[in-house]
Structures are given as C-alpha cells and as structure tokens.
C-alpha cells in the first residue's frame, strides 16, 4: 500500500424518493497475498467518499507507529490488537459504503490465514465476488481456489479484476490472455459467467472512473458495475420456501412469522407444511404491519392459514409444484471450519433453516484423520428426523446448513446440499 490518500468529500444525502430506489448489494473480495486487495478496497472506500477525517487520522497515526511513511489502507479494516501487532487480517471485516445508486456491504476476507474458512463465510451472503489477480502473474493456484469457492457457494455474480495493469503497460493482450485462461477454469467449475475488468487499484484506473489508458476496454469501471449488477433475482420464478421462525398468538389467531427464503407467496395460494405434509391456503399476509396480497423473498412477514394446522418453529411452508425433498439422508459439499477434525461416526447437530436435528456423519471424503480446518469435501449425514431440503444450486437459503458440536455448541462445518451428488465414500 503506497498510495497517498486524503479524506474525501461526503456524499449528498438522498431524498425519500431516491432512498426507496436505493438497493443493497452484499459483495466479497478474494485475492492472494500482494494482489493489492487492501489497496483496491481502500480505493473503493476512498473514491466513493467513505473515509472520514478521524478514520484517516487514526490510520495515519497507526501507520507511523509501524514505521510506514504512507497510510496503510489495510488498517481501515484491521482493527484488532492482534491484527495490528502481527500486521495480518485474522477475520472477515465488514465495511459499509454508499453511492447515490446503491448501498454496499463488503465482506473483506483475508488472503492468507484461514482464507478458505473466511472466504466461504464472506461468500455465503454475497451476491457478487471480486476475484483479484495480479496482471503480471495471471491466474495462479490461489485464483483457481477462489473461483472454486465462489462456484461452490453459488455466488451469482463474479468479477475478475485484473489488477496492476499499470505494471504491464495497460496492454490489451496481457488482459485478454488472463481472461481466456480464467474462462477455461470457469467453464470447468460450471461458473455461470464472469465480468473481467482491467484495473489498477494503485492509480485508480477503471476503479471508479473509466480510464483513458485502457481505451481498448469497452466495459464499465468496477464501481459502475457494482452499482448496476442486478440484485435479488426474480422471485416469481422460484419455488416458495417459508421456514417458520416463531408463532405469534393473538387472540384466536395464529400468525406464522418468518423470512421468505425463496420465491413469492400470494393470498389464496395452496401451501404444504413440512415435515407433517398438512395442506391449507393462505388467508392473509402481513409485511411488518402492512397487509399485502403478495410477498416475496427476502421479506420478513407473517402468514395466516385458512385451516387450523399444527405448525411450529422449524416447520417449512412451501407452495408450487417443486416440493423440497423430505429426507434423512443428506448428501452435501462441505467446508470444514473448526480446528477440531470431523470424522466418520461423529455425532453432530444439523442446523437447517430454523430447524436443528441430531445427525451422524456416515461418510466423508477424507481418510482416518477426517476433515480438518479449511478442507473442502463431501459428506453423507443420517439425521434423526427428516429435513425438507433443496439442492443448494436451486436455493441457497434452503440448501445450506451448518454442523454444530453438541458438546460445546461450536460451529464445525458449512454444508451445501447436493441431493443427487456422488456418494462421499466413492469420491
């Protein structure tokens, strides 16, 4: 990090009308050590006018204490004592910034220590991931691993930011070579597509403003792309999934409270309650005090059903022809998060939507040692009760689960359901 920075002019406040049109994008960054990720994040925050005077003074002060002449923008996010002492990022840091068009939540994940665990965490809620490569080095092993994690977590939008273009003379052929190389890996990984952007985080080329030095590049600058990429998807085409969080009793009425995980629901829709299989119709929908005819993901709402059914926390209300698979045999891709290993025969808790059930690890793609921290693999679980599952590829919210250690409550493993996937034992 060598750029000199100055505090930025603040953004103009938005009117109420503008606010209602401002959407939220959650995105994550991934890069190898020295790819310039901190510089890029610092540049985005700075050039979008999100660094204020006292934050900058704190960074300058801390940089001087560490013997650096120029402010280290990584210190904007590395706030913990251990991070500053060791000069490393130890955890996912969340940063917030806004433009007139959009609000952004950036999950900034470290490139070295525990990077798989942290990148999986950041990618789990991200709608876009920026994969950073150094234009001089092109696609390296870490890049392929980042792309594999983005594919595994089904992050809807991928940006390949080819950084340090200033060090390769802003040459189109250097950029094209890297894009072509990455495209080969993307096809193997079944990535839905990606948007390549040539940038220099240090000089700011194509970060906020399109650069004249890459006149051969016809796409948008990075920030313009972040501002315009579609968020939320189209819920009308997706199956409706409503995990019940809580039952609000008011007089005789029962209001089933939850956040719509996928799709949309209308008053009058026929619905099924899982795992009981009971059916009814939607009598009313309230979205936080407002009675509506239709609601869509990810709104928090309450439902009233026409029939009196036994519905409680952990049940899932669905509608439409594509019912979830009700099963006790869970096949999934996993990322192991905890320092203690996960082995065949381990007894765990599965947390899926709002339901927690006991399970045993039946099969694992790992030897005697089991899965260790930051390992990716496949797993087969046998659960004590059936779970209504979707493939993670079809629905991130109802295809995701975590494994919990019943002894101390530690979060062990992140899982992505793959119902038709290969048997863990045979991979």
């Amino acid at each position: 990090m060598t750029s000199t920075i100055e505090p930025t002019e603040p953004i103009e406040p938005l009117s109420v009308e503008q606010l209602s049109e401002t959407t939220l994008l959650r995105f994550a960054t991934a890069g190898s050590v020295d790819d310039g990720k901190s510089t890029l994040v610092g540049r985005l925050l700075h050039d979008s006018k999100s660094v204020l005077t006292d934050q900058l003074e704190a960074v300058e002060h801390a940089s001087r204490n560490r013997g650096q002449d120029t402010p280290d923008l990584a210190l904007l996010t590395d706030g913990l004592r251990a991070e500053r002492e060791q000069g490393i990022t130890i955890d996912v840091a969340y940063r917030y910034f806004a433009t007139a068009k959009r609000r952004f939540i950036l999950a900034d994940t470290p490139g070295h220590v525990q990077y798989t665990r942290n990148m999986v965490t950041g990618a789990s809620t991200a709608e876009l991931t920026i994969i950073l490569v150094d234009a001089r080095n092109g696609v390296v092993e870490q890049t392929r691993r980042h792309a594999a994690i983005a594919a595994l977590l089904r992050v809807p939008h991928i940006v390949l930011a080819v950084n340090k273009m200033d060090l390769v003379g802003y040459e189109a052929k250097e950029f094209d070579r890297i894009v072509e190389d990455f495209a080969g890996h993307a096809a193997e990984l079944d990535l839905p597509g990606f948007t390549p952007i040539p940038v220099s985080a240090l000089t700011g080329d194509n970060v906020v403003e399109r650069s004249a030095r890459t006149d051969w590049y016809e796409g948008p600058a990075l920030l313009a792309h972040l501002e315009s990429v579609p968020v939320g998807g189209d819920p009308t085409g997706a199956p409706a999934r409503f995990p019940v969080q809580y039952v609000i009793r008011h007089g005789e009425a029962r209001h089933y409270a939850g956040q719509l995980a996928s799709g949309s629901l209308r008053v009058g829709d026929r619905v099924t309650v899982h795992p009981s299989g009971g059916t009814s119709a939607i009598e009313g929908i309230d979205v936080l005090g407002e009675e509506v005819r239709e609601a869509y993901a990810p709104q928090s709402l309450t439902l009233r059903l026409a029939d009196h059914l036994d519905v409680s926390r952990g049940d899932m209300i669905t509608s439409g022809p594509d019912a979830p698979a009700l099963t006790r045999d869970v096949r999934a891709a996993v990322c192991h998060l905890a320092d203690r290993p996960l082995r065949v025969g381990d007894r765990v808790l599965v947390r899926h939507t709002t339901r927690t059930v006991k399970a045993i690890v039946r099969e694992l793609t790992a030897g005697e040692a089991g899965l260790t921290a930051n390992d990716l693999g496949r797993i087969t679980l046998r659960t004590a009760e059936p779970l209504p599952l979707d493939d993670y590829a079809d629905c991130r919210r109802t295809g995701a689960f975590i494994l919990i250690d019943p002894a101390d409550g530690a979060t062990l493993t992140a899982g992505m359901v793959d119902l038709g996937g290969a048997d863990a034992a045979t991979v």
Partner: protein
Amino acid sequence: MSTTTTVPATTTVPAAAEAVRPYALSHLDALESEAVHIFREVAGEFERPVVLFSGGKDSIVMLHLALKAFAPAAVPFSLLHVDTGHNFPEVLDYRDRTVKKHGLRLHVASVQEYIDRGVLKERSDGTRNPLQTLPLTEKIQAERFDAVFGGGRRDEEKARAKERVFSLRDEFSQWDPRRQRPELWNLYNGRHAPGEHVRVFPLSNWTELDVWQYIAREGIDLPEIYFAHERDVFQRAGMWLTAGDWGGPKDGETVERRLVRYRTVGDMSCTGAVDSDATTLEAVITEIAASRLTERGATRADDKMSEAAMEDRKREGYF
C-alpha cells in the same frame, strides 16, 4: 472487455444499466427484514432475552423493530438500562414514557449503587462509561438473561467491524475476538452453556445514516437532545460537555451557552455535543451526510483513550 481478441464464450456482457426490478427490496427494507429475522430467531431459540435500552437512537430503533417483529402481539422481551447516574434527564424521561406506552418491563442496573456500596470507585476523569460493565454483567447473571440485544453497529468502530450478529459471552461476559464462531448465511448459532449468554446485534449491518433515514421513514419519536437546542457547555478534550453536578466544569474550564445537539447519547461525562442548527430530522440527516467525522470520532471521549479502547472494553464485557 477488449475489442482486440475474441471474447471467451463464458464471459458475461456487463449490463449497461440495471433493468427494472420490481421485486428488489430497497436497502432500508432489506436491513429491516434482516433485523426482524434476528429478533424472531432469538424469540424462537432463547428462554430469557432482554433488550439493552438506553434511550439512545440505536436502542430506540431496536425497540421499534422488535415491536414490528411481534405485532400484533406484545414484544416477548423485557428491557435493561445500565444507569450510569450521569444520564441526560431528557433521555430518562423518554425511557420512562416509552416503557409506559408499550407496557414493557424495565430492569435497571445502577452504577451509582455500585459506587455507593464501595464496589466500584469513581475514576479521576469522572467518566463512568467503563464502570458499566460490572453492573451489566451481574444483572445478566442475576436475572439469568440468556440473550442480550445490543444496538452496536459494525460501522461504528473497527473492533465492532469484526463482531458477529450472535456473539457468545462466558459467565464474565468476556469477548474473545479470536475465538468467534464463523457466521454463515442467516444461520445464527445461539448454543450456549448454563451461565453463558449471547449478545445479539440486530443493527450490525446498519450505518449511522441508515439509522437516521429509517427514523425519518418510520416517523420514530426521539429524545429532544438529538436536535439543536441551547445548552450550557464547556470544552474538554476538544468536545463540548454539558455542565453539571457530575464533575464539570473544573479549573480553567469555562461555561458558555451554545447552539448544539447530540449525535450520540451516552454517559454525560464522556458524550460530547456538536455545534448544530439542525432542528428537524431532515436537517440532521443533511448534517450527518456532510460530516467529515464519524459519530464516535466526533462525540466519544472514551474511544479516544487508545487505539484499542473499544476492543479492550468489549473483551471485558462492555456492550
């Protein structure tokens, strides 16, 4: 992409502009939906949750969200106020009005009582902010609260940027940033042993501006000290502090009457007022958007003590 080579088949063409998306939530709706989800998760998973309520804007927004999350029924939580004994009277009035209006139960942990009993000692700088941790922790233990909602936001302070939404605390309320549970998707892990509790932060992803814009959109009533008014203040450590019995002004400090407002509300001894003529929500929002300082940088003496002041207090069990 380049025009000089063939574009790889898998590459997407960047959208020129976002298509009309009638189903995309506005950012305030998205944040509101997320916070309500968090409240309901806690209601579903815990036995004795409590909401930390100071009468500050963040705790007021928390309560508003809780009311919406459980309507038409009542909020299934009680409130807890850590009373430093140096509160703004306007804020205490607001607290009591709110409790009465919504028929809520209020617990109070009193710093003054701990000082009177000789358990805590007044600091030489008169600041009582760090003294809140013990009364808070003991109240949590005595009442066996298992989930404690706080209004902390990740944008406030860099130690908070790494805080989880569900943050496990031991029986001493201690926070260990290196031993936090990974938090994925919206699957919050609230498992805890007897004596432990979970701090829950529904406003984790909100910024100061989001809070104010939400207050404006929802028409939420606030204590009047958030708006510009004339007040007797004196300067200490570059901040305007309210003159009063709590310990100011001291030698060499002079009182003057100024037009100010509070950007944050905490203990009187360490919360500074800012010069302001913003008397309406719109004016406040305009002022914040134009500010060159973060709210803590502008108004909190306690965070100026050291680079890791907040981290250290959080480790000890602070909010």
